[in-house]
């Protein structure tokens, strides 16, 4: 609910939104003119990302043209409506901007011939829908609904991406028209079923098909103009559009027919049942939209040419009656302050124009004669008769039509006729002209096209021919004369009247049917969504527990396992390697190193620890001494001594300051796992070292350095020449390391000094 009742101050229409409506309006007119003067299809192409083979290819045939008319036409009316409905509401400019962006994305989606470009616009519509649904984002409920819509359609979108790429790889083209042209060449490919199932997942999430349908009624948290536009007239039909687009290529496949008919029918039946469980007019309309989308999916799946015509006609008819009904719901919300049908009766007295629009739209929705809905029902009946569907599908279809009649009656009769018995604070009021003009225009068009279907015959025929090439052009006119529709309409109206008379009883019965909630995919969605943070928490707490010893254990442990495996794999080669035993002095030096390293584990005093670790350095120096590098050995001795002396001095100075965060060192603990890991690590690494160094050594480098040291580098000490000339850059880097280490240590030293000055 956006407005409070009787908020007369905000009744003046918003000029900005009316001006913005001129954009889609002019596009609509240009489009109409072009359709009359230029023969379809229109094609054009620009290169975009040539290295990925992605071109902006435009392809407008009858199907695209029908969508373009709906997008721009209804888009204009939605903006006009919003100018009244959102007048004086903060954030209306933002909504208008998002609506225009959404319109652009929709246009892009229906005119793109390249699968990936189509996908791009497809995803954009999902994102923009998220932003639009979240209009009243201060409410927790709205945020959850927006999140749900985006997660469900986003998940489907990724399946769609995978499906498109797979399809593109199978067909060796990403152009939809090429794909249709060469369909017979690749329909036997084993991967095609997987690709199609992925594409189904994408289309079903977008068009709210079972089991992904639940997000759509929740998306009714959006403001009414948004619901009318996105969640009834355009975006949710994008999935059906895609299926209809690809129908020409795959309609002969059994998978295509079975999945679409089964899913479409079960969606329609399920949604019809859910319709009767609602009391909120907008949610009733939402469920009946889902039912229509199910019927459309089923029709795309049906073989035969009549089905293609039925898809095109129902698309058109649905937009003409459902959008006005949403506007009606918005007017009620705006004028009477509620959308709950129990509190809405006899509204005709306060809102006569809205009542007229509701009645005419409802007649079309119920498929009664003299409305365009009747034509749609007619074509639909013929399509089903033509393709000999299962009896179950036929019965389901009659039931769905019946519920649709009842829902139409609720929206038009229950709400507007009868006596207003509900006590109210203020009188409900009629909407301003921008809120009346759009629904009245649409229902008038509905009546007009119902009386003279030849007016829309060209566009519907062209759309149907785009879905099923080679279709008979006069199909709509022929269909109008058919007789089976009379019996179909009669039975639907009969069922509808029974349901309408017993609406409250049915509602009470179904409301108690909680198994529909528990079994429904929506509860599954919430369970999964609640499961995700739990899983995330569980895993993250285990992997990122904050204890350094654990991290080190994982690092060293994984390394040991990897090396163990790799050495194990190549073990037969290693066995042949002869490893010579080291000489005694070398062994002694190694023992010194090992002793120093081991001792660090057991010493607690920092100063002693430092001295003991000095043993490691002295050991290495001894090792250098006995392996033919005496000068290096002396350097190492000197460095080690200086290091220990300097570090000890520092430690002694720091010690005067109170001890800070060094208590972790105080408690040596024996960790059995760590012991095993470190022994394994040491053994594996040593083995690898021994084996590799036992390989013949290519001494080109050292020989060159030895030979060139004096003549070319003018230095007698090869090691020095290597350091300052041959590999001077390494030395530069190491000097950098020293400098930066000092800079890194500065704050630590300052910390110590600061602590000391505090202490004194």
């Amino acid at each position, binding site marked *: 609910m956006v407005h409070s009742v009787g908020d007369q101050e905000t009744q003046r229409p918003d000029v900005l939104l009316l001006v913005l409506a001129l954009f889609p309006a002019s596009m609509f007119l240009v489009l109409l003119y072009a359709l009359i003067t230029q023969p379809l299809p229109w094609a054009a192409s620009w290169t975009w990302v040539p290295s990925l083979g992605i071109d902006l290819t435009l392809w407008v045939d009858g199907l695209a043209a029908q969508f373009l008319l709906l997008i721009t036409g209804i888009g204009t009316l939605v903006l006009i409506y919003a100018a009244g409905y959102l007048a004086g509401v903060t954030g209306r400019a933002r909504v208008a901007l998002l609506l225009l962006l959404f319109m652009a994305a929709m246009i892009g989606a229906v005119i793109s011939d390249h699968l990936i470009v189509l996908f791009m616009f497809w995803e954009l519509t999902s994102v923009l829908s998220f932003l639009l649904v979240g209009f009243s984002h201060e409410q927790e409920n709205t945020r959850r609904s927006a999140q749900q819509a985006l997660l469900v359609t986003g998940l489907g979108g990724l399946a769609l991406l995978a499906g498109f790429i797979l399809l593109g*790889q199978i067909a060796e083209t990403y152009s939809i028209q090429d794909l249709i042209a060469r369909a017979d060449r690749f329909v036997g490919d084993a991967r095609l079923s997987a690709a199609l199932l992925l594409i189904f997942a994408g289309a079903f999430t977008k068009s709210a098909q079972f089991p992904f349908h639940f997000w759509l009624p929740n998306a009714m948290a959006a403001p009414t103009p948004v619901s009318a536009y996105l969640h009834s007239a355009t975006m949710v039909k994008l999935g059906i559009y895609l299926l209809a687009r690809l129908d020409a290529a795959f309609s002969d496949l059994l998978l295509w027919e079975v999945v679409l008919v089964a899913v479409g029918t079960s969606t329609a039946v399920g949604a019809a049942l859910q319709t009767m469980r609602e009391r909120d007019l907008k949610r009733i309309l939402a469920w009946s939209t889902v039912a229509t989308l199910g019927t459309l999916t089923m029709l795309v799946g049906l073989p035969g040419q009549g089905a293609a015509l039925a898809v095109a006609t129902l698309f058109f008819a649905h937009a003409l009656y459902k959008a006005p009904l949403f506007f009606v719901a918005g007017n009620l919300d705006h004028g009477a302050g509620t959308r709950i049908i129990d509190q809405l009766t006899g509204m005709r007295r306060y809102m006569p124009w809205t009542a007229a629009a509701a009645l005419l739209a409802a007649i079309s929705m119920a498929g009664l004669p003299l409305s365009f809905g009747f034509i749609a029902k007619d074509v639909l009946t013929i399509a089903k008769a033509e393709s000999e569907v299962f009896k179950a599908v036929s019965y389901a279809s009659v039931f769905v039509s019946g519920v649709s009649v009842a829902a139409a009656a609720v929206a038009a009769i229950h709400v507007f006729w009868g006596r207003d018995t509900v006590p109210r604070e203020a009188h409900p009021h009629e909407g301003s002209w921008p809120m009346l003009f759009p629904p009245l225009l649409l229902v008038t068009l509905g009546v007009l096209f119902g009386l003279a279907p030849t007016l829309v015959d060209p566009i519907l025929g062209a759309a149907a021919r785009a879905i099923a090439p080679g279709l008979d052009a006069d199909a709509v006119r022929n269909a109008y004369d058919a007789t089976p529709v009379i019996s179909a309409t009669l039975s639907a109206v009969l069922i509808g009247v029974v349901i309408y008379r017993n609406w409250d009883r049915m509602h009470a019965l179904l409301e108690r049917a909680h198994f529909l909630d528990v079994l429904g995919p929506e509860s599954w969605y919430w369970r999964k969504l609640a499961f995700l943070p739990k899983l995330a928490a569980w895993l993250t*707490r285990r992997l990122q527990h904050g204890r350094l010893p654990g991290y080190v254990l994982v690092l060293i442990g994984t390394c040991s396992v990897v090396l163990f495996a790799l050495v194990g794999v190549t073990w037969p080669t290693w066995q042949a390697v002869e490893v010579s035993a080291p000489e005694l002095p070398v062994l002694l030096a190694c023992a010194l190193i090992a002793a120093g390293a081991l001792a660090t584990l057991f010493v607690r005093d920092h100063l002693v620890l430092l001295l003991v670790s000095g043993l490691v350095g002295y050991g290495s120096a001894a090792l250098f001494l006995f392996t033919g590098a005496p000068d290096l050995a002396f350097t190492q001795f000197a460095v080690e001594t200086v290091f220990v002396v300097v570090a000890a001095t520092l430690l002694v100075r720091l010690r005067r300051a109170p001890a800070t*965060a060094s208590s972790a060192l105080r408690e040596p603990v024996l960790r059995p796992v760590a012991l095993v890991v470190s022994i394994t690590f040491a053994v594996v690494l040593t083995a690898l070292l021994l084996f*590799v160094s036992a390989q013949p050594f290519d001494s*080109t480098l050292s020989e060159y350095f030895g030979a060139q040291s004096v003549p070319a580098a003018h230095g007698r000490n090869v090691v020095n020449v290597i350091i300052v*000339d041959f590999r*001077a850059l390494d030395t530069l*880097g190491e000097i950098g*390391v020293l400098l930066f280490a000092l800079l890194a240590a500065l704050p630590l030293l300052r910390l110590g000094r600061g602590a000391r000055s505090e202490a004194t």
Partner: protein
Amino acid sequence: MMWPLAPMLVPLATALLCVLTQSTPRRQQMISVVGATVLLITSTLLFLEVQQVGALRVVLGHWPLPFGIEFVADVLGTALALVAALMLNVTVLWQWSDADAAPSSPTLHPLLHGLVAGVCGAFMTADLFNLYVWFEVALMCALGLLAHGGGLHQLDAALKYFVLNVIGTMLFLVAVALIYAATGHLNFSALGDAMARLDAAVALPLYGLLLFALLAKAAAFPLYAWLPASYHTLPPPVLALFSALLAKVGIYAILRLFGNVFTPAPALLYDALGWIAVLSMIAGVLGAAYHWDMRRILAFHSISQIGYILLAIAMASRTGDTAAIFFTLHHSLVKASLILVAALVFRYTGHYDLRRCGGLYASRPWLGVAFLLLALSLVGIPPFSGFWGKYLIVREALSQGAYLWTACALLVSVVTLYSMMKIWLEAFWKPHPDPAWRAPEHVRLAPAWVGVSGLALVVLSIGVAPEALIGFADAAAGALRGDVP
């Protein structure tokens, strides 16, 4: 002639000058800005030059190969150096704003430039031991920057970072030593030939150890603990620099060594890399889904995104390498920008913890636009930049029949969407939990905004006109694989 050295020498010299001017902070900051600008100009020029004439090579001291240390500025290296220069400029610029900046201290600027010097040295060198040296330079500077705040949790982070990274670097050193012992070479091209001649059974463990050490550097599963343990303690501008550069050095080294120097490496390694990549993606994204602190969320996302890059490398094909290069460049920019946006969120709402911020969509819509654009890029929603990287990876994985990896990559991107949406819902859509809260009005954020919007524009332009970067990445991948047109 010495051009390839410039991206390393300029920041090193700037660092030195900054050390010398420690006592006059104003002068130091001027030098820092000038140095960063000079670096940006030189690396741009170098990048353009290399684009035109191909890789530039220089051997230090004019020693013949393979005896001297060689520096090679090729398309990949210069592009990464350019990103490093760009990020350094943004970081230095940020220091001028009122946004959550690093506490100024005399060691900050030298360490920033030193980090970039180390990273750029690693991008340019063609010598395995020299690569180790630059790793060490970067490691030391990173340690200094982590400890720089001096708080207790910063020291804790620095300790974890240091210990884990030193182990990784030591393992790398052991691998270098073993490879030298087995081949007698350090120069990349000589090494490539020598390793190819080596007995496969000897080579395999060496490759394995080398890859392992680099994976620890690159923060891959299960060796990534250092990254989320330390990143969130950094001030945002430094964090942006870290996330753009630090793990990327490891990635770069893997790409260079296993996509260029040692090709073809044993297939077993690439398979293992693929699984590691998938596990990194999953563990990273779940970590992000778990946390509420924006900095932690973004840090964990880095692991997940590193998984994507590794998966691309594991494809071991030209397209795979193209994807990896594209993703690396894109991610450096996007992640850094997101961190800066998070810093602005912090500046406006006073918290990094999502549970305690809110109300920004109404009061700061442009920040919302910037975040949305960047977040959608990170998730990979078309036509934003991340999509193209994801598309390349998924397409290549599907064409190689790696269906399971593809499925994981796609599912992970749904969870990425979920966690980015979490930031949006909490920080932007939710009303601020404190009803008395008002966004601060008079704060000097212009330099911060210049940085964020500049990066966001770059990201946006990559998204709508991806051909330039994809074409470039493809050329770089071709150069790596040696099939230059």
